[in-house]
């Protein structure tokens, strides 16, 4: 049972998995074809496919890495590549040592000049079409790029293996990834999905924006034994009407960060939602609730405790 759950979630991690694999076959065919008739050098080169299906090769493990998302920055530190980092994004604040790495600004549509000034040999992008131009510019400067999509718990071990291979920390990354996968699988088996409270994760109050099924926060909630009342929304987040929230009538409202008693709780239109009227808010804080990390299972423990406390 947990096996099939897992594979369906993996399929969801890769909405374009099929097209990517077709692409991979084509690229592989070309690479094999080239390898058959090309020089020795190209035969020796190894590479990996990134999360946008690009083939990434490095002459040697990366020595100077710029990471353009907080999630990959934390992951690089976790797999022991932190001392190779020469650039991070503005909001990458975990682990605290990351703050000593030079800040290169925003991660989406980033500042190529600032990145190039760090003289990296590998730039780790968040997999997004809006970065295409930056990647092309870096290509022309001879700087390699890799696209990593980290938006679910399943992507943590996958990204760890990918970045471990590129940064020369492969064996540590692999063992951490394997250990995490085992813990994740057993947590899935033990979570007792649906037995806990029905929860709404609220991201914004006006307009009301809720967290849907495709966010790792929804996964954390599931592992903590609770149910996301908006699990049918197949998106990371969505704007919904107040009426829908009132109808789904969540037992608890989960807020990530923010105030103990949020200000919108005073507004008249929110009084229609019972959990808000009765001030049944659960608040969790910390970067482990901002992006998927190896710390996710500790986050699940804290979340479960907070839910239990709020229910009593």
């Amino acid at each position, binding site marked *: 049972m947990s096996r099939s759950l897992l594979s369906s979630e993996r399929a969801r991690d890769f909405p374009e998995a099929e097209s990517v694999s077709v692409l991979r076959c084509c690229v592989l065919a070309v690479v094999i074809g080239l390898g058959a008739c090309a020089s020795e050098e190209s035969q020796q080169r190894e590479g990996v496919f990134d999360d946008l299906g690009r083939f990434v090769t490095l002459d040697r493990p990366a020595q100077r890495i710029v990471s353009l998302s907080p999630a990959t920055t934390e992951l690089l530190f976790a797999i022991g590549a932190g001392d190779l980092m020469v650039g991070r994004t503005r909001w990458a604040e975990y682990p605290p040592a990351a703050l000593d790495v030079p800040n290169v600004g925003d991660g989406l549509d980033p500042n190529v000049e600032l990145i190039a000034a760090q003289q990296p040999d590998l730039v780790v992008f968040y997999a997004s079409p809006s970065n295409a131009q930056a990647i092309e510019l870096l290509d022309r400067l001879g700087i390699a790029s890799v696209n990593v999509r980290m938006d679910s718990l399943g992507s943590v071990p996958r990204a760890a293996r990918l970045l471990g291979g590129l940064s020369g920390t492969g064996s540590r990354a692999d063992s951490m990834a394997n250990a995490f996968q085992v813990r994740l699988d057993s947590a899935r088996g033990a979570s007792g999905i649906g037995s806990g409270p029905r929860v709404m994760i609220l*991201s914004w109050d006006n307009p009301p924006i809720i967290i849907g099924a495709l966010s790792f926060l929804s996964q954390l909630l599931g592992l903590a034994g609770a149910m996301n009342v908006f699990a049918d929304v197949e998106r990371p987040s969505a704007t919904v009407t107040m*009426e829908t929230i009132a109808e789904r009538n969540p037992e608890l409202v989960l807020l990530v960060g923010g105030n103990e008693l949020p200000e919108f709780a005073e507004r*008249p239109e929110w009084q229609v939602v019972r959990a808000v009227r009765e001030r049944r808010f659960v608040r969790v804080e910390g970067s482990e609730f901002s992006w998927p990390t190896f710390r996710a299972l500790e986050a699940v423990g804290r979340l479960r405790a907070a839910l239990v406390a709020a229910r009593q």
Partner: protein
Amino acid sequence: MMRWVVLGVSALLVIALAVAVGPARIPIATVAENLVGRGDSTSLAIVRELRLPRALLAFAVGGCLAVTGAVLQALVRNPLADPYLLGLSGGAGLAAVLAIAFRLGGAWAIPAAAFVGALAAITLVYRLALVSGAVLDTRVLILAGVVVSAFTGALLGAAASLSSAAELRNAMLWLLGGFDAASWRAFRVFVVYAVVPLGLLFYWSRPLDLLSLGEEPAQFLGADVERLKRLLYVVASLLTAACVAVSGVIGFVGLVIPHAIRMIWGHAHRTLLPAAFLLGGTLLTGADAVARTAFAPQELPVGVVTALVGVPAFAVLLRRWAK
């Protein structure tokens, strides 16, 4: 007479429809029960505390936007004029975004900030338009509105690139407009506020007719043109500022509804303004009902629906009118 009946009946029908439909599937009989105060608490709250005030607020805002659009088109004698032409939406948006960026507290922080920002933009545009002397030149007024919009837009862009991305995206969503924050209290505040400016604009129908002929003819025909222009500008802007405070910036209604009424009904403001109020309210209430239900449980920005529904209707009207 027949036209008034059609307008009035469609207004009532669309309000009834907006109360009857929604993402929560409540049978029509239950809705009727709820309206008279019976039924289970969840559907009672949805119908009486969410749908009804929301439908009425959308109607009032749509009506007011259409009326201010008609007035501003006559004032600046430009068919492209709409309630936001004169820099007001930029001021409101900037203030709302700043309120979010600086985490101003309080349940009413965003609408209050938007209102203050709109007033600031109105004042600034008004001062700029008067630089050429004591006469309010409406061409300079448009220019002043455009440059103030450009300036607030630039500040908004600066704030957008400097503050935390997620919060700003949410502020922009608020600015796109909608009635998520509708409640009886918001509706009451809006109505109490809007009655006086709306009444004044209706009262000035005759001088507006004169003004739309041109400033010189209006003067010959006995209108105190200078005073009238200033009053119209200030009153119309104050009304728009309230619309922005309760619902963000909703486009299209104030631009196109007045033109549609002029095509089917003529240019006399005594009929144009009330008819625009009814049709604007009808369109916006209907559009909001579609926005809530079309992709339920997700919601579309209502401005998207007003344009998607309104543009084809307007195109048909334009073709018939051109024949």
